[in-house]
């Protein structure tokens, strides 16, 4: 490599930035404009959502800040009573749709990321265990996974949601709705991770470095997490990226069906559900803008995930 054939006054090891820019991954990234655009869009939406309280022109879910007379203002036009202008228009209560989308994307992304993290921890843990231990532990975990895989994710999520609704007292349901949603989506999605990690673990555990570690009597958890785990992360990253897009869509679907987050802290799916009542009457902006945001977000994340899968696949290089 060129960077290593340098004179003495330069560091032998290149900087992190240098290593990133020189990597195969970066080369492949920069060569596909679609992925670059997707990544930029994802980044914009994530940042906008994260900094919503500072970016949003209004605080849409503080009822005291709303003026009902602003209701149903079309996008980019001046309200005839109050003279206010809203770039994406307002909904039936005079809420700014743009601000609502920023706050809604925040909820959607929060649920998406948390659900993926939860599914990943659960799936990777169980996958490592199954692959390493083998025997009845493996059979038990994998049969549970097979059974669950035979149900569509949305059905599993709905079922978990329904059970939780029955368990949690009604007064706390609204506050806990987001956690229940994370749990429901996470539990419906762990199988992918478990299966992938299990198969990688099975092939890794017979390699020399693991054999060597076992000879040193290193305890099993340490072998699993310190030695095997770092070698199976590539596929996990790919599944997690695509899983994020799926989790966001699943969350929106549940909220659209009215079983997700409460209307007081709406996600993108809730906004679409609320807005669809006004499609017939011509107030299209209430549902179209949140819908477009969801579409762009899910598509971008998916495209990045797709590219990552191809880029990390040695057979396709």
């Amino acid at each position, binding site marked *: 490599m060129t960077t290593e054939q340098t004179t003495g006054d330069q560091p032998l090891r290149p900087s992190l930035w240098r290593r990133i820019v020189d990597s195969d991954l970066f080369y492949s990234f920069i060569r596909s404009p679609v992925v670059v655009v997707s990544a930029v869009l994802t980044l914009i939406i994530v940042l906008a959502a994260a900094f919503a309280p500072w970016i949003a022109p209004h605080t849409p879910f503080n009822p005291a800040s709303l003026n009902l007379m602003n209701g*149903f203002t079309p996008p980019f036009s001046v309200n005839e009573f109050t003279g206010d202008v809203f770039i994406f228009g307002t909904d039936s209560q005079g809420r700014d749709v743009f601000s609502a989308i920023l706050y809604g994307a925040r909820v959607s992304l929060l649920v998406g990321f948390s659900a993926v993290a939860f599914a990943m921890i659960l799936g990777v843990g169980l996958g490592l265990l199954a692959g390493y231990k083998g025997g009845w532990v493996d059979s038990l975990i994998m049969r549970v996974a097979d059974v669950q895989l035979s149900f569509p994710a949305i059905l599993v999520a709905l079922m978990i949601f329904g059970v939780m609704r029955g368990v949690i007292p009604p007064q706390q349901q609204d506050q806990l709705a987001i956690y229940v949603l994370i749990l429901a989506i996470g539990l419906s999605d762990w199988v992918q991770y478990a299966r992938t990690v299990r198969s990688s673990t099975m092939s890794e555990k017979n390699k020399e470095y693991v054999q060597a570690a076992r000879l040193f009597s290193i305890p099993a958890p340490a072998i699993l997490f310190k030695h095997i785990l770092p070698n199976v992360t590539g596929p996990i990253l790919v599944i997690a990226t695509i899983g994020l897009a799926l989790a966001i869509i699943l969350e929106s679907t549940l909220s659209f069906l009215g079983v997700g987050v409460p209307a007081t802290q709406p996600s993108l799916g809730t906004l679409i559900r609320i807005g669809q009542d006004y499609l017939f009457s011509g107030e299209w902006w209430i549902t179209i803008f949140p819908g477009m945001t969801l579409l762009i977000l899910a598509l971008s994340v998916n495209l990045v995930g797709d590219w990552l899968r191809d880029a990390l696949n040695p057979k396709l290089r």
Partner: protein
Amino acid sequence: MTITPRALTTGLATAVFALSAAASAETLRWANVGDSLTLDPHAQNHGQTHTIAHQIYNTLIYSNAAGAQTAGLATDWYILDDEPDVWEFTLREGVTFHEGQAFTADDVVFSFERALHANSDMRPLINTITEIWAEDDYTVRMRTDGPNPLLANNLTNLFIMSREWAEANDATVVQDFSAGEENYAVRNANGTGPFRLVSREADVRTEMERFDGFWGMDQYPMEVSRIVFTPIQSGSTRAAALLSGEIDFLQDPPVQDVNRLENSGDIVVRNAPQNRSIFFGMDQGRDELRTSDVEGENPFADRRVREAMNLAVDRNAIQRIVMRGQSAPAGMIAPSFVNGYEEELDRVTGTNTARARELMAEAGYADGFSVTMTCTNDRYIEDEGICQAVTGMLGQIGVNVRLNARPNSIHFAELQNGELDFYLLGWGVPTLDSHYVFDFLLETKTDDSGAWNFTGWSNEEFDALSRQLPTETDLERRNALIAEAWRIVQDEIVYLPIHHQVLNWAMRSNIEMDVHPEDQPMIKYLSFN
């Protein structure tokens, strides 16, 4: 040209025959946001519950689309000349129930006694009746506690059941609705009405078919042979169902879709002011609210807080934005049809947020307080939207409202158990007299009065005025009492009135049916053109 009575009868008979032949197999698919709460006709005094019951059961007297008292199972009704506290009802002869039992005076006596049971929600309407008996098979007399010239007004939703059927099926006692109890009459029905129940799945689908033994076959168009009633919760789904031809009659098109439906060609939207006012109730009687952060005292008990809330609610904005102009902003909780209505009391004054904040500060709530507002989301026109809007308006004077909107079956059960601090309610006045409002909503809550007064408001002066009304026969003096009673209610700000509803019924353009001011379509009147 002269028309002999005979020719007329023949002509009519031919016309009726032609009509019934033409309409022999017309199914009416009908949708509304919410379902009947129960088929037990005396368990709930609730609009849609009565509406479904009117298809299956009959009342002695009902009010038609013009608001006039019309003969149902009674053909004549009057107060006896020599006994001013006794009403006599002459009953229709030759009427049979759907399951074949013959209708007699005994069934009327049974039904009234049933409706006077403690579980009955219809009890306050007839609790002035002290005695009821059958003079003969087709004459019923009722003695009231003092002369009650307006008793007939209270009977328009009092349905008549068969004693034989109720006894055979162990349904002689009214269902205790708020306790979640059921009896045979909750899912089954046997009336004398124009349609009989075929199947019912609560909140999903109710099917009825024409009862060919109905006594009024020749009196009403009776062109529908089968009714399929499906509650559809989502507004846009209801509108889409009508547009796509999935249903024929939409009882409550969403306000935002009325224009679109009108412009679609084969749909007509008929409208009329409705006999129903929408308002908020606040529990003022408890020492401490259940859902507030204020401890040891009840902010609603302070009149200044109620006045501040009244000043903060912008009723005109609700009418313009939430209702799209389809409502009449209200200052009192009785619609204009009602005896005792006064334009002056109903006038809506503008909001005054600054004054409202001052009042809050004077009452010691300068920093505001929190409370949970409970609303229906499938009962009144745009109910959830109204609640959201009011939540925002009250937020501006520091009343921090948490909104809890849910289906009406849960809302009304909790309301009647007296569990709510701040709630939405709509009230129609089928008797067209203020006493109905006083009796149900404003008199002190006891076993015999104030059945729907969940505000805990109790005012001796008001109670005294209201309790003179049933027996006051001098109409002028009676109206003066009503006016005086309303002054107390308005001054105390017992409720927060929002508006009177305007009814829109959307139907296929080949359907002819007048809008009923109490939102009670009676399908026997429906005809096709």
